[in-house]
């Protein structure tokens, strides 16, 4: 079974990112394919490598990066939503004339077409949000 997952909220404030992560881990453990995870709305805030949560708490961003590395997961940050909220890779930094970038390893920035294409190519869309 092929899944595409949409994540609509950033880390820590809502359980969204936690639920999505647990769902995806379970799907992968069962041998299903997760074609793409698409981060939209405040969900783009999952993609900043500048977070530093307390030691006794889970690290939501690191966990995404590790999952992507282990399973070759495609973590896509919506470019329009990311621009509004300040999530940039080096290319976006240069294009927008900013002086820093903050995208975490394993994520990439792309357009909404990646969501639609993913939905077309997948068997199931599962949305997590607030």
């Amino acid at each position, binding site marked *: 079974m092929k899944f595409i997952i949409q994540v609509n909220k950033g880390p820590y404030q809502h359980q969204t990112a936690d639920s999505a992560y647990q769902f995806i881990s379970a799907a992968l453990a069962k041998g299903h394919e997760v074609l793409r995870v698409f981060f939209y*709305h405040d969900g783009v805030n999952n993609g900043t490598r500048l977070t530093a949560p307390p030691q006794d708490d889970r690290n939501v961003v690191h966990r995404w990066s590790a999952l992507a590395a282990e399973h070759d997961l495609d973590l896509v940050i919506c470019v329009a939503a990311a621009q509004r909220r300040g999530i940039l890779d080096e290319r976006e930094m240069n294009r927008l004339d900013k002086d820093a970038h903050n995208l975490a390893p394993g994520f990439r920035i792309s357009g909404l077409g990646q969501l*639609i294409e993913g939905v077309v190519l997948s068997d199931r*869309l599962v949305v997590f*949000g607030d």
Partner: protein
Amino acid sequence: MIKKCLYVNRRAPYGTSYALEAIDVVLIGSAFDQDISLLFIDDGVFQLKSDQDTTGIEMKNFSSAYSAFEMYDVEKLYVSKEAMTARGLKKRDLVVDVEVLSDNAIKDLMDEHDVIFSF
């Protein structure tokens, strides 16, 4: 491959950006030649209210987008009759022509689509 996509809009405009960012998805979706329907239930019906004027809150007024959908071949807009009634809205209060459905008919609408987007 063409999928029947239903975009379910349940939130009021401006209080959150879901309505605004849903429009972007619909427009991109139309470029992919998918079979698109938009459904407005619960507070989503408020998105279509005419005469929105955001000058006083200095936010972007995006309500004209709904009338522009037709140019993108997004022509199937449905609203819940019961949601309108509970909110004191009539069809003439809306900024665009829509098909008003009963909640029972909306159950069938959800049923016959392949994918449901939630905003």
